[in-house]
């Protein structure tokens, strides 16, 4: 199914698309392009979204079911695999395209739905519960009573530049990518522009690094460009190890050629002849597709020696990361590429002058690089018209947690947080109340309901005391406990700190221990009395300060963000945990208290036998009771009781 596309249209695409100078295409060319773009079709085409989400949801089985269906009914049709639309909650997604009709998308497709869906489509009797929508087209006939994509709230409120091709083109076909306008910017740049001009363009566009700090990309490139050195390197950082982020993964899986094009243009601008893609080894499908994309680009002469006779040489090498969050930090990433422990270095020297193998090195993340061909294609002025004064362009987020749609979102910089959560992602699941949104993963922070009108751009978000970070959003509802979430991130951090500098290694560990002690009843042998617990919270603030002030790298400096932001906005919840020893959301298990409802107790003694601390007293056939001072809140009695006589509070 994932068979490699052969290059039957190679010469055509190079001559008539890449090398073509004129804006208007000849009719013949247009027609042939239409075929490659799957617009002019003479038989039905079925697309299946194959990406890491849909595979887990069972998309791999769909291919066989569809094939069986077509063979049984003797229907001639093509099956094409595509990436992801970004709507992860509704995978697997398939689309059916019948000659003359618009492309029609179905969601939540399981093998058992295939017959009814395809029967319906081929007989103009549409299976409503699985329908997602249809594409708009000037020429083709639309389906009746099926919403158009641009009417769906999810698409309507986005501005898709980076994600434009995702879910539509075949990520394993360079031909489809070129037919969709790809590699044209790259071809033009290496033939018509000097590297310096490209640096200038990007600097003028005010593109900022999407990795977190928001440093001006063009400015950084120029430092490396101007540092004299025989060898310079570009590293595309696709090692997204934020435990809740998946945008780079899905982006690479859905449109790998765009990533390659971004790398290629940037490499040219900086004067790099060898670029690396650092990608998590767990991202097997993404690696497979990017590898394939590199091979295809080489086959088209877009990578390698003397590219398109421009005299420019470029090699792109994939390096698989072995699992370490800290390698998202550029100096740690460089250590890792050199085959060492992923330990960061003190800056200066900065990688742009002294990085990989002590040569000038630029580290950019995937989204930043993908913005580059867009800027080149559409022009700086157009690009600058999008976004806010200081934050230009769009921003991609992954949204998960308690939202209706777990999805990828791309919105213009300056969009309101509320629009993203409630419009694009469909609001809170199961009609629950919105509580908070955690932005930026373990280095990010929590925002509350009153921040929903915050604009999403570097400056506005920074004003709330957090940074965009990895731009993953995890939405919490009333059933979630803030302390529990912060504890989770601190635990993540104490494992992921590289362990080198004292504030980060010891500070995260202490902060985790403090959070653990306040989400626990104060009755273990360490004697966590209320005073100590309160002192712990006082310490949290000074620990957070020391981390910010003295840590070596960004990981440590930002490790306290979740704590600081929640202390600011959810102080009451902390106090509830410390003084009242209660967790309103009921998440902190160890804060729970148990009592026996004497009316229901039969005196079977089972709970007393099972209690690990001997906190339950009572004789056979008499009512039992729990001595609270001995109870550690493990809940075993609750699980054991056959008469529901144990009540938990």
């Amino acid at each position, binding site marked *: 199914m994932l068979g490699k596309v052969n290059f039957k249209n190679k010469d055509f695409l190079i001559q008539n698309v890449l090398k073509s100078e004129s804006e208007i295409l000849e009719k013949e060319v247009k027609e042939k392009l239409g075929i490659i773009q799957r617009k002019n079709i003479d038989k039905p085409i079925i697309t299946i979204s194959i990406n890491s989400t849909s595979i887990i949801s069972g998309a791999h089985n769909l291919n066989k079911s569809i094939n069986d269906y077509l063979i049984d009914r003797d229907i001639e049709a093509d099956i094409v695999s595509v990436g992801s639309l970004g709507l992860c909650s509704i995978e697997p997604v398939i689309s059916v395209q019948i000659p003359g009709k618009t492309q029609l998308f179905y969601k939540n497709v399981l093998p058992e739905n295939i017959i009814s869906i395809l029967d319906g489509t081929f007989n103009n009797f549409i299976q409503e519960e699985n329908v997602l929508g249809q594409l708009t087209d000037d020429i083709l006939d639309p389906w009746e009573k099926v919403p158009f994509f641009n009417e769906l709230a999810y698409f309507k409120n986005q501005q898709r530049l980076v994600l434009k091709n995702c879910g539509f083109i075949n990520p394993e076909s360079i031909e489809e990518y070129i037919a969709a306008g790809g590699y044209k910017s790259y071809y033009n740049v290496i033939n018509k522009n000097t590297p310096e001009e490209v640096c200038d363009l990007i600097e003028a566009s005010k593109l900022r690094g999407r990795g977190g700090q928001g440093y001006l990309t063009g400015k950084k490139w120029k430092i490396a460009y101007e540092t004299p050195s025989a060898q310079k390197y570009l590293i595309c950082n696709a090692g997204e190890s934020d435990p809740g982020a998946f945008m780079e993964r899905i982006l690479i899986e859905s449109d790998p050629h765009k990533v390659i094009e971004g790398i290629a243009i940037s490499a040219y601008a900086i004067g790099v002849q060898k670029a690396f893609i650092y990608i998590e080894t767990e991202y097997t499908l993404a690696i497979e597709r990017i590898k394939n994309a590199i091979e295809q680009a080489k086959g088209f002469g877009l990578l390698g020696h003397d590219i398109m006779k421009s005299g420019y040489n470029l090699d792109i090498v994939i390096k698989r990361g072995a699992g370490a969050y800290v390698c998202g930090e550029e100096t740690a990433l460089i250590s890792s590429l050199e085959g060492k422990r992923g330990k960061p270095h003190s800056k200066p020297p900065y990688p742009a002058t002294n990085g990989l193998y002590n040569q000038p090195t630029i580290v950019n993340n995937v989204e930043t690089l993908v913005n580059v061909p867009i800027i080149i294609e559409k022009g700086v002025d157009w690009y600058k018209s999008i976004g806010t004064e200081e934050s230009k362009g769009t921003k991609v987020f992954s949204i998960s947690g308690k939202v209706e749609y777990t999805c990828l979102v791309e919105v213009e910089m300056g969009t309101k947080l509320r629009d993203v959560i409630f419009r694009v992602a469909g609001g809170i699941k199961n009609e629950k109340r919105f509580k908070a949104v955690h932005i930026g993963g373990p280095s990010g922070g929590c925002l509350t309901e009153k921040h929903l009108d915050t604009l999403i751009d570097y400056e506005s978000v920074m004003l709330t005391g957090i940074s965009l970070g990895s731009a993953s959003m995890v939405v919490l509802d009333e059933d979630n406990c803030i302390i529990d979430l912060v504890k989770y991130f601190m635990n993540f951090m104490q494992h992921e700190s590289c362990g080198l500098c004292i504030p980060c290694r010891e500070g995260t560990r202490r902060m985790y221990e403090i959070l653990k002690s306040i989400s626990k009843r104060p009755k273990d042998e360490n004697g966590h009395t209320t005073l100590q617990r309160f002192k712990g919270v006082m310490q949290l603030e000074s620990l957070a300060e020391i981390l910010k002030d*003295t840590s070596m790298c960004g990981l440590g400096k930002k490790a306290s963000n979740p704590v600081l932001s929640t202390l600011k906005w959810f102080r009451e919840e902390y106090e509830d945990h410390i003084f009242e020893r209660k967790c309103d959301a009921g998440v902190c298990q160890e804060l729970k208290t148990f009592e026996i409802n004497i009316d229901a107790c039969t005196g079977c003694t089972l709970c007393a036998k099972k209690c690990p601390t001997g906190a339950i007293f009572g004789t056979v056939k008499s009512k039992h009771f729990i001595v609270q001072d001995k109870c550690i809140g493990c809940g075993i009695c609750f699980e054991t009781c056959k008469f529901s006589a144990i009540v938990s509070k």
Partner: protein
Amino acid sequence: MLIEIDVNNKKIQAKKGETILETLNRNGIKVPTLCRMEGFSPTGACRMCVVEVEGKSALIPSCSHPVEESMKIRTHSPRVIQSRKMLVELLLSNHPDDCLYCASNGKCELQDLAVELNVCERRISGEKIKAKLDQSSPGIVKDSAKCILCGRCVRVCEEVMDVSTFDFYKRGNKTAITTSMNKDLNFSNCINCGQCIQVCPTGALFEKTNFDIVLQMLNNKDTTVVAQYSPSISVSLADELGLRQGKDVNGILNAVLKRIGFAKVFATAFAADLAICEQSAELADRIANDENLPMISSCCPGWIKHMEQSHPDMIDLVSTTKSPQQIMGALVKSYFAQKEKITPEKIFSVSIMPCTAKKFEAQREEMTHKGISDIDAVLTTRELLKLIKLFGVDVHSIDEEMPDNPFNTRSSVGKMVAVSGGVAESIVRTLNYKLTGKELSDLKITKLRGFKDLREYFIKIRKQQIGFTVVNGLKSANKLISEIRDGKSDIHFVEIMACPGGCVNGGGQPTCNDVKVLKNRSKQIYDIDDKEAIRVAHKNSKVISLYDEYLGEALSEKCIKQLHTNYTKREVLL
């Protein structure tokens, strides 16, 4: 190029390219550090050296940040002091609370910093680290619970010793220092040199002590407790005992050891003379037969273990002569025992060494005779100091004494072996005499002295060019060994000492990270050689009489049996 910076509202001159810390130190401003080591590139791990720089939002580590034109620095602002204090408190929060019982009590950098920063209350308490105490090695004990992960041992072991026994393990809250595959130290490639102990700021690494058994034996009336002390320790003790720095305290040492209760006190220097005679004879033989050349020295036990595990193909090249410690050990339990009519079982032989690897050497199987060890206990210089304190000996009021018979003479080379290059120089002198029957006109061979990693000296003896090489530290040793493997053939003798500078800088010496003090120790040794009358091993009168009445001539059957040993390949993870 000089630039001007502002430190604590005072203008000072800085050299462009140097770090803030270097500038501060040159100008007499002290900033605490934990992970820094002189002569090593900074890692910036401990963050103790942070300073406040105007215009920067976070604090800046002064050890790794270069000075910049017109920087405004505050080294002791409230914010800086508070941060440093907090860092120490963080380290203490899960540190074992047993300073009083700690091997480093009183010499601990963490303890000192806590005092310096006025830590007097436990504000932060953390879960203690549960770590296994690794006592498996005969030389070094590792207590990971006290480790603050500064990484100094890792760097010394890799960058100075080229052994790389240690590295960091895992990350985050699980970070630790371990050996390869997390093996116990005695199954690792550790050569017991003890350089890691020298740099450890806390009590995470210390020597395996033989203190108690020595005390017990000193009180055992049936046992004759005999002590020998290494030629190198007399120059490193003065400072610690409150005497003039670098003063040679041989005479005092003899008296002190007697006062403590050792029945006999011998200087290992005597055995060193004997070792030089044996090695010179061995070398003369090898040169005559043109086999197993170059001959490589064998007195450093660290090097010997390293050779057995990393260069087993060199075994035939290494001199079979035992180290001075083991020669003395063998003589004490044979010649001395016979002479004094004591059965060897009733002798408890203690050696006092600047070295933790000597503890390992003493328990090698080859170093026993009929099941009795030649050496029963090895104390490091540091342990000796404790012993002196324990017995309350006042070194200022004690009269100097001589070592005991029958080993109470030495030549100056007996001391010189304590310095890197000393063995080679001594052998040149004795070999020349052996081959020509004449002494060298100038005994001082400057080319073999100094602190360079590799020193070479060529001499023509009876028309033959003979080459001597001195290697300082294992890093250069490894380089030379691969050259020999590749066919380097112009040299005939190689002296290898594992520790840079030789035994004066051994891993058992009082902890000292000041290069000047170390150099002074070497100078002291060479001063002895310059001043004394008997400057060649073969003129040591008691050595001559020992050969005459007991051993026969050098390399006799008896010599081979008692003064020589053999080596075997070791399988460890390299």
